[in-house]
């Protein structure tokens, strides 16, 4: 009994979960921090700068709608296959619920928006992937929409431009996702074989099943500065070879150096480069389509 009386408590107890931590009085989203240089700047400034850090030039990720807005004339797209939605063919645990959540948070039905528009007055079929939907992963819907877009371009004798960003094939649709790589590549084989022009624009990040299919099959392959481009993930490689990889590993610049890309293009220059490329393939006011 006495022992208890003199027993000294080792720890002071603090009532938990009572007071919310006080936050600095800054409205949500007013300021943004650059993940690369750490510079804190007004979000509006960054947005005005096409979401490129005003201090170090880091390219923030754009979702499909933001990309359409800065790429197509008047930010206008006549969308194809807007109603296609993923099913849950494997009854994969948690997939159906996650799809719904992704639809709500991104406002998209799946990870790509495809359609018809113009760049510098020249008509194109374009596809815009969105990393904010399921990490841009390619399941049946992405594969189908990309394939249909290529087929549309073929039928209309228009060039195709695909802006890629993806973590790769969508695991929750397993083998069906894998086969989308073959499906999209086969559509390109036909289209390009008939003289169709395909420009691939790789944005951060593009890996796995998308980099190992249509993203690397462009007649011209452009990439944004600093974009991550590669097949296997950095962590997987480090675990396999047990070596530290260089800092610039799998960046657009690394790929350029190793001959995997045609050009690294700053976001501000992208539209004018695309316009020039399209223009150089235009014959008598029409876009070249070989066959």
């Amino acid at each position: 009994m006495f022992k208890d009386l003199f027993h000294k408590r080792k720890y002071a107890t603090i009532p938990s979960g009572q007071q919310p931590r006080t936050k600095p009085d800054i409205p949500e989203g007013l300021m943004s921090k650059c993940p690369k240089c750490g510079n804190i700047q007004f979000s509006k400034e960054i947005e005005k700068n096409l979401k490129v850090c005003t201090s170090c030039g880091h390219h923030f990720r754009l979702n499909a709608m933001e990309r359409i807005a800065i790429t197509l004339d008047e930010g206008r797209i006549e969308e194809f296959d807007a109603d296609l939605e993923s099913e849950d063919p494997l009854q994969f645990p948690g997939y159906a619920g996650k799809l719904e959540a992704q639809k709500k948070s991104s406002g998209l039905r799946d990870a790509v928006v495809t359609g018809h528009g113009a760049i510098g007055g020249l008509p194109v079929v374009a596809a815009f992937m969105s990393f904010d939907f399921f990490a841009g992963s390619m399941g049946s819907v992405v594969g189908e929409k990309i394939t249909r877009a290529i087929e549309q371009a073929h039928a209309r004798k228009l060039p195709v431009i695909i802006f890629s960003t993806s973590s790769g094939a969508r695991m929750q649709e397993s083998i069906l996702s894998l086969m989308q790589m073959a499906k999209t590549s086969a559509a390109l084989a036909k289209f390009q074989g008939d003289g169709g022009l395909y420009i691939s624009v790789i944005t951060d990040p593009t890996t796995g099943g998308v980099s190992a299919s249509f993203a690397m099959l462009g007649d011209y392959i452009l990439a944004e500065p600093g974009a991550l481009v590669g097949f296997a993930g950095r962590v997987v490689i480090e675990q396999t070879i047990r070596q530290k990889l260089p800092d610039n590993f799998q960046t657009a610049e690394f790929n350029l150096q190793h001959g995997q890309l045609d050009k690294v293009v700053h976001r501000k220059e992208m539209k004018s480069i695309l316009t020039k490329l399209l223009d150089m393939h235009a014959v008598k006011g029409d876009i070249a389509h070989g066959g």
Partner: protein
Amino acid sequence: MAGELPFEKPLSELRKKIEELKKFGAESGIDFTDEICRLEERCTHLQEKLYDELTPSQKMHLARHHSRPTSLDYIQTIFSDFIELHGDRLFADDLAIVGGLAKLNGIPVTVIGHQRGKDTKDNIARFFGSPHPEGFRKALRLMQQANKFNRPIVTFIDTKGAYPGNTAEERGQSEAIARNLREMAMFGVPIICVVIGEGGSGGALALGVGNRILMLENAIYSVISPNGAASILWKDASRADEAAAVMKITADDLVSFGIVEEIIAEPQGGAHRDLAVQAETIKEAVWRHLQELSGFSAEQLVVDRYEKFRKIGKFKSPSAQAEPAAEIIESAQV
């Protein structure tokens, strides 16, 4: 029993018991014939039950069995006059892929396959059957050659996936795989792919764009290895058995998705139990499919292959019946 898998243990224990009883009977002169007959019957019954109802993860272990026949085993048994050809003419000869010319029932064909090693040393030389870009480019070179000389192409798929490494990335792993997918779509010769072990991801698909895809009964084919899936799903690569169950990776699953045309039966207990029998069943199936395709023109073969892959995918499109009205999005300027 050499190379026995954990799930096969009850069977081998029963067999051991029968042997012991036989030995004891012979030594002691006591007649155990009835007993032995009963046990043998039980053994056959157990064997049938065990191998008829293999779970996806048990199949995965069979597909990865260290003594499971490899591409070279089949090439040497099924074909005659095999001449192995080497190199991509650009960088190196990747031993993770083997290929060359051979005759199938007297007809020249190009045969290509992923090649796992037979022992540790061989495995290191062959990168455990995981190709670098030069491997895929070697395969492409041989396929282009087949196309030029109008020879059918037979591929054997057996890889955990393309090699994940910095050298592979530097030399364009993505581009090498992508190019194979695109080029394979356009060849005007029959392409028959046989999944003999593990079909892992893009590294498998880079040899897998065929008019026909056949799959051994216990082979598996998936977008990511079950170990990889487990580490993403549950942050624990050791839960591969569970992942194998949810990922639909068996031959039956692939037939139900319309990806695989035919399942090739394996000897009871797996392909490694009887290479000669397995090679014969593969040969019969490959030959039958080649005969079916022999009447196709080059254009028909391309169309046939295109349509096979064009159909793959499951999605819903609520307004598919009516011609969907074009939706025009006027996105706000950033």
